[in-house]
């Protein structure tokens, strides 16, 4: 997007007042959104994101700015303005820039921009039809599709240039069911860093549509979830949001470095039940949260976060790594040039264990089966989390019985990890959008079916009746 010569000039302006590191991040992204509401195409929008962010570091201080003006004049002005926040003498100078070769994972076989939009619309209408026809209680459906094609270039004062091409696509299905004054909504949203081949060959969107409608209708007959402490079996796939929220965020250097995380200074210590091992893996080809490089140019890695219950690794970016005496481990990400990058998750999941999901349910006398989880949030400092159960069932005498609505799971990350007492063999990943200080980024969550011996369940159905 810019020449090496211009990049060097800008980096040298940025560092003239004593910054010990500078970096230019350039981005151009084409995004397309299509949405079908009740079977009719309602919107189709093209959006072009374009800009550059410049970051300066000096010891433990960072300075960041961005602009849409990627001309020599615009970039030099920004670098100059940013450099004014330091008042020292130059200590580094860039004399050359070498292009670093990257891997070529996550590339589409059937690129979106060469695939007719009419055919995408057709696919969405079919899925809408499947949802609508599932049951007469389905009152509204939406089916949407979004893809984006992003080109990234990074230049830094280590005299390196990196580039990466990132393409991702995701469908979104929503079924709204209504009966007797009750309304229930269910959604699913499969996606990947792949091209159209993912939707044409790897998954069947109509199958997702049917499952989405089934769950929405099922929840209409749900009873209010009882509240109190109880064993909870959490389903595979998106159930991994529990680990993402309750533990993953607290392992990011963003909070660990300043001692603001419950897991600060706990490396080598037991933080989870010994049957729990978990990874963050940005290297999986085509996975929703993958990349060839991270947003500092470091190669993505498979980081073993927890090994048999022992805290093994944090997710580290180069800047926060300075406080921790650690190097970045390929985990630095940002939504766009408008965000300063920091340590984030990519594809994070609990590794499979030995139990079958059937055994886990059969071994639970009374509890909640959280088959499908909604989103949640966590305070990294206290580790307190909460998340919603989208589709839940009571377990009574080792069997799944009534569907329940309105369940929320709350607790503290450090307790829940220690209370995992069964881990299934059915690992699955699911796609989410993760929001934090460097914006919204695509991230996979995942896990096999697990059981937590005790979680506080919030619901409107009153105290548990264990008879």
């Amino acid at each position, binding site marked *: 997007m810019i020449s090496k010569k211009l990049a060097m000039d800008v980096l040298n302006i940025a560092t003239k007042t004593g910054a010990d590191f500078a970096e230019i991040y350039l981005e151009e992204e084409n995004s397309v959104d299509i949405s079908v509401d009740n079977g009719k195409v309602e919107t189709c929008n093209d959006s072009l994101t374009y800009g550059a962010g410049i970051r300066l570091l000096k010891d433990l201080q960072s300075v960041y700015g961005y602009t849409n003006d990627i001309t020599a004049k615009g970039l030099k002005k920004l670098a100059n303005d940013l450099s004014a926040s330091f008042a020292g003498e130059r200590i580094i100078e860039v004399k050359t820039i070498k292009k670093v070769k990257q891997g070529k994972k996550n590339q589409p076989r059937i690129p979106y921009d060469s695939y007719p939009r009419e055919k995408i619309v057709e696919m969405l209408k079919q899925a809408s039809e499947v949802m609508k026809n599932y049951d007469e209680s389905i009152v509204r459906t939406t089916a949407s599709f979004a893809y984006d094609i992003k080109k990234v270039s990074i230049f830094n004062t280590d005299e390196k240039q990196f580039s990466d091409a990132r393409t991702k696509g995701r469908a979104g299905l929503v079924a709204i069911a209504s009966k007797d004054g009750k309304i229930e909504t269910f959604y699913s949203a499969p996606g990947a860093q792949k091209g159209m081949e993912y939707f044409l060959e790897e998954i069947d969107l109509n199958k997702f549509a049917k499952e989405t409608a089934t769950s929405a209708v099922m929840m209409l007959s749900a009873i209010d979830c009882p509240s109190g402490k109880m064993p909870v079996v959490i389903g595979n796939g998106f159930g991994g949001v529990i680990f993402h929220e309750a533990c993953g965020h607290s392992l990011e250097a963003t909070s660990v470095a300043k001692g603001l995380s419950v897991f600060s200074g706990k490396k080598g210590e037991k933080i989870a039940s010994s049957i729990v091992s978990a990874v963050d893996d940005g290297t999986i080809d085509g996975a929703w949260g993958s990349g060839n490089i991270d947003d500092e140019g470091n190669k993505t890695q498979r980081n073993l976060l927890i090994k048999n219950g022992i805290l093994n690794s944090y997710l580290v970016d180069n800047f926060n790594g300075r406080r921790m005496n650690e190097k970045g481990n390929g985990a630095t990400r940002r939504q766009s040039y408008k965000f300063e990058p920091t340590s984030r998750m990519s594809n994070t999941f609990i590794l499979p264990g030995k139990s079958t999901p059937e055994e886990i349910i059969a071994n639970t006398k009374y509890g909640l089966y959280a088959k499908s989880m909604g989103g949640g949030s966590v305070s990294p400092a206290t580790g307190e989390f909460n998340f919603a159960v989208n589709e839940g069932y009571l377990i009574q005498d080792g069997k799944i019985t009534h569907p329940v609505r309105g369940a929320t799971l709350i607790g503290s990350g450090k307790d829940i990890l220690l209370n995992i007492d069964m881990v299934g063999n059915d690992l699955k990943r699911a796609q989410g959008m993760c929001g934090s200080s460097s914006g919204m980024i695509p991230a996979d969550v995942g896990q096999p079916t697990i059981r937590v011996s005790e979680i506080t369940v*919030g619901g409107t159905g009153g105290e548990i009746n264990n008879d």
Partner: protein
Amino acid sequence: MTKYKKFFIKAKEENLEALELTIRKSSNFSFSFFNNEIDSYKMSDSFKISARGIYNGKIGTAESEKFDKNTVDYIISRIKENAMLLDNEDKPFIFKGSKSYKKKNVFNKKLAITTAQEKLQKIKSLDIKVKSASDLILNVETQYHEHAQEYTILNSYGLKLTSKTNYALVYSSATANDEMGETKVGFAYRFISDLDNLNQEEFAKEVVEKTISQFGSAPCASGKYKCVFSPSATSSLLEALLSNVSAEQVQKKSSLLADKLEQKVCSSKVTVTESPLKKNPFFRYFDDEGVATYDKTLIKNGVLKTYAYNLQTAYKDQVQSTGNGYKSRGKIGIELVNVAMKPGRLNKEQLIEKLGKGIYIDDISGVHSGLHPESGNFSLIASGFMIENGKKDKPVSLITVAGNIFDVFNDVIAVGNDLNLQFNGYEVPSILIKKIAVSGK
């Protein structure tokens, strides 16, 4: 505006019936201190042009942050292609203009001309005050965010409107460990138009008090409690309730307020207004379709008075747009600006006294996942205090409050006078409600 002329010429050449451009120019300046040392400093300028055009009887849209010789062709060609894909029956609207507009000058010059150095000094002094307000505080982070924006709408009918706004937000958070070694976090924030008007001592005291008052917090027993929701908790619940006021939700049968106009939907203590013309950071005198906004009552003494409309939904119901058309990713949706709840007579302490025995819910979180606007059901993590004999007692954390938002607003017994402008732009007081289901021990 001559640099945008090319878009309109091209649109005519390409047989677009009408074209609308909105141009957003914004600049941000922010920095933060961590334990009295500056650790982040950010500045930016950005630009986005967003276009909607009528072609073949449908609305096509496109947006771009790039503005060069190819932008005109990109925008017009995308509008045409996208319009051809649509097959909904919605009548397309590009607006000719309202009769009059209530433009006000809300741009704060003093904020814009105060030097960065001066702002840094003042925020540093605030950070030091928070840190030194108590020996128990371990870490403090104080942030300053300043945002300025110029928003312009132009269309082929000659409509041309511009609005310029700016504001600053000061935010400070502190952490401390209690006797049990549990970490507690407290924070406070203010929207400000003048740094000199910020009472630093009072602000620092609030941050520290919010942190330390949580020491020893634990879940309370499960059960139904009489309850006061803080302004922050009230604003989250009210926002969810008001999503049902959207005429689009009503027309698409996914609003719980469908067929409820002029009916009682809340307790008679509840009056809610939308005041886009209020002079504050969220001020808007025209919406994203160029319709003049106006102040209105949404719920009066518990009775639903109006839905919120954009041009499209208003046409369907044969009414006028209420100036609530706001754009997201090209689509004109419906949003409310500057919502406020009419305050009552009691201050927070009096409200707690009136409560007698029960619980004060200071904070709820997880609204994006634990609250379903379509059904109104929620189950959310919460923290606060037990109330005994009309006074604050033990701190409570790690509990959930659950119920239905309509039940909450039906159960309002009293409304406080402690109005507070929240992050979501809602200015609401504390409310006292009959009962809430709490799940704890």
